[in-house]
């Protein structure tokens, strides 16, 4: 299932452009104003909001990087098969 999603992603979207989108997104989401949203002492699941946001966000971003790495692998395989 993941494989299919990945194949679809790498088919429909140009890898480089998607990368740029995510990179800029990363910068934005790690800074103001997103930080501001979570800048409260409220607790979510008993954990401070900012803390949770940063760590969860971070984890998700690592996973996104992981997906990208897999997509690059796929693209390289395709290139290798074609050439």
């Amino acid at each position: 299932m993941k494989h299919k999603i990945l194949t679809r992603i790498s088919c429909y979207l140009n890898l480089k452009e998607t990368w740029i989108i995510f990179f800029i997104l990363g910068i934005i989401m790690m800074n103001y104003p997103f930080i501001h949203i979570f800048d409260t002492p409220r607790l979510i699941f008993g954990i401070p909001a900012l803390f949770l946001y940063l760590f969860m966000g971070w984890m998700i971003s690592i996973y996104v990087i992981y997906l990208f790495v897999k997509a690059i692998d796929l693209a390289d395989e395709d290139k290798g098969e074609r050439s």
Partner: protein
Amino acid sequence: MLSIQLVAGISLLYIALLFMVAYYADKKQEQGHSIISNPYIYSLSIAVYATSWTFYGSVGRAATTGLDFLLVYLGSSLTAFTWWFLLRKIVRISKENNITSIADFISSRYGKSQWLGAIITVIAMLGIMPYIALQLKAISTTFAIITGNRGIHLILKEGVSLAPPHPGFLAAIFLTIFSIVFGARHLVSSERHEGLVAAIAVESIVKLVAFLTVGIFVTYYLFSGFEDIFSQLSAKDRILYEHLTTLGTPGNISYMSWFSMFFLSMGAIMLLPRQFHILVIENSNEEHIKDAMWRFPAYIFLINIFVVPIAFGGVLISGSCRDADYFVLTLPLSKGHHWLALLAFLGGFSAAAGMVIVESVAISTMFLNHLVMPIIVKLTPRAWFPILLINLKRFGIFLVIFLGYIYYRIVGETYMLSNMGLISFAAAAQFGPALLGGLYWHRGNKSGAVTGLIFGFLIWFYTLLVPSFVKSGWWQSGLLENGPFGIEFLKPTELFGLTGFDIWSNSIFWSMFFNIGAYLACSIILPQDEVEKEQIGKFIDIFEIKKEEESWETKRFSKPVTIMQFVNLMAKFIGENQAHIAIAEYLGDGEIDERGGVSEFELPRLKRFTEKTLAGSLGAAASGAIVESFLSDLGSKMEPVYDIFSTVRAELSESREALSVRLRASGLMNRTIDLSIIMKDLLDLLRNEFKFDLAIIRLKQNNSLLTTVSYSGAEIPAILEREIVPDINTCIGDAYLSNKPRFINNTQHITKMESKELLERERIRSFAHIPIAREGEPPLGILSVFSRSIIGLFTQPFIDLLSSLAGQLAQAVQIDTEMSAKERERQQKERALLENARVAKEMEIARQIQLSLLPAVPPELARVKFAARCVSATQVGGDYYDFFRRGDDLVDIIIADVSGHSVGAAFIMVEARSFLRAKVHSTGSAGKMLATLNELLYEDLTKSELFITMFYVKYNAERQLLSYANAGHNRPFFYRPRDGHCSELDAEGLILGVKREVIFEEKSIQMQRGDMLLLYTDGIIEARNESGDFFGSDRLISIIGKAYNKEPEQVVETILMEVTNFTGSQVAEDDISLVVMKVL
């Protein structure tokens, strides 16, 4: 509290363990199996980013200012996302160019600038001071904590002890030793230290495990999990809690500070010298980058999970934020878990040691290559250079660490760990614009980079480093409050009146502003030089560089250099062994001619290879300088190639101009078949296109000399009229004998003495001899071109073009030769045919004449009948018979045969006949007749080497008396019916023409009625049939015997018929003549 010996012992043991790992990895690498070449190790080694700042400082920051400690890692995590494009490009470039450090990389991109390398090295050395200081501080402080704050007493002798040294000092000493051991045992030509990388990977695991252990301990053992800690703190000290879990006072300031730190960490992960070293230089495989992209962030994530719990837990347990930096250690210690504390200490120690070792090795490499080498290069290389170099590197390591120590002494107590680290981050960030611009902006140039770096560095120094000195009290000054000389506008922390920024944002903003501004401005305004442009291609377009190495050289050597000279140069710096290995790899199966030199076109490539090899040990800038000085010592400069097509740089394939020349040449060669026109046109074309002063075509003549057949240009008799004997001592002879183009680009350096004098006299500066030959065939001649004004004219593509033109010329010459040969053949055949026809005609005429001389009808006399016939063979014959009537009753009969079948023979016979006719009435007997005839004909017969056989008969019809004489002729047959058999008439006599005076015997015989006489020539009896048998006289005799009573005419017919039947289809070789006489 643990004992000093225990702690010190464990620490040293740990280092020893790391060293063994390193040693093992190095050994394996030497054997060829790299154990570190896998993505896990690579990712772990990058985690050297996590130093004691991560281990201790994060906790400290989390407990004092809150969540902004995380920024250092968030930024680096995002940067990791760019690695597949950015880092991979950097790695590719660095491998291609044998880059040794970040200073090498940047200076190499900007035209191998030594100044740039030096500036970057200085910035690195000063900028890293705080960072090293923080490691030393961490080690010494935690050591003191774990050992109960006891000082270290050095006991030399009983009772004598030195004052305890500052703890950081010992740490510095030990770290220096460790760094040298790990990274400066010997000069490596590639600057890769596999052992070091392995040790760092182990160290990363140790610190992660240690931190996680402490984290788990605090979170789940001392407390009941995350929520528990948060709720406890929230309950205990709400204000602090809020302060720590949010960003403090709302407003842009915090966000600005947040962003600044974020930005700094984005840069630091790659720009710190140790990071660049591990990421780029130590990278063994580009594929690893892919995995590191997510593994490294994952590591950083893991190591940061428990920072906040530990921080908050520490606050809760210790009751304050004091010494929060060291909560990781103090918490287990205070709870009595000594082994855990020891583990924590080890983790922190490991983190600090790893950082210091890698950083100092990386920076000392830069120190050696960019500060020291430029000085050393000015000196002549000596044998002890390798030893000097390695010791200078060790000195560099010492210098870096002790600069850090000094900073620690000055500033150490004032700042928290993380703040010291940030100062270094800000310094490293100055490399960013130059690096990124160098990678992606074609116009980024050296002046821009230099000015940008200088400005950025100065601002950094002024806004961060100086304040740290002031704040620590080392430099008493009102600088921070009032600005320099009281100018508030220039206060370091609020530069140019920018208030409201924290110290980091202030510094970063202004340093980046001036850095980037100067970089952009100077890059746009000022031009780039040649070397830079070359490097730009190598850096920015590295992924577009095709595999073909053939590119048109833009430079050539003014004086040839041999391979051995290059090898010797390399050996001076990297040792003989390495030099020989390197050159062997380079040569592979390349061409070396008999003299150990390489072709002139190979030299620039060889020079670049030498530079690259040396760069591995000394850095690109230094190696470039070394090779340049070496060459200039030899007297050989890089001269620009004469850009004959003005497109040398443009394409790898042939330029349009070259193609048009080829086209025109083909055109004129096909327009006509006149070779002399072709040659002249071709030479004129060459001269007009390429501005030669003289162009000559020489072809090999039949005497093996090469002579001028066509020329265009200046009349230089000395050259034109030379007839060249192909000889290896002359350039032209060499070209001819070896069937390869020979050229001299600068006649000043020619070695063949013979040619040199001639060329100097005629002021020729460069020339080339191109063999005129078709593929795979020996040369037919030489095309020579001379220039009096241009040197460096002949490049490989140009020689190729001339060779191909010469090849076409060879084709034209060949065709011309073949055509002439065919023409000659045809003419010969024609002549032969004409000749044959003429001869045949002559022969025919002669035959006609000869036949017409024979008597048409035999004479009529009383009581005797004659018949005569001559059947001529295919060629003109020599048979003759005649009747001379000398009266009513007297007749002379002659039969003769001339030797040979030729017109000459026929004419002799005519001459004889004329003589006979003239003499027949005056001379008397047959014998006398023959004698006279012999004498008359003797001269002519001797001259023409012919002979005549003749039989002369005189017949008196009244008295029926026959007298005869014989000159060597066939004896006629005489048949008397009464006798019934044939007899021969014979008389003594030589063939006519043998002797001048001959006496001929004369005989007589009385004829009776019915007698028959047959005179014949040897054509009859020598007639052959198919089986080669002769007709022979017997057959003739038998025919006579049968036909004697017939009329003479019929006898002749019968004989001839018999002969014809006998010979069958065989062609008659000799004339057949018959005279038959019958007495009635």
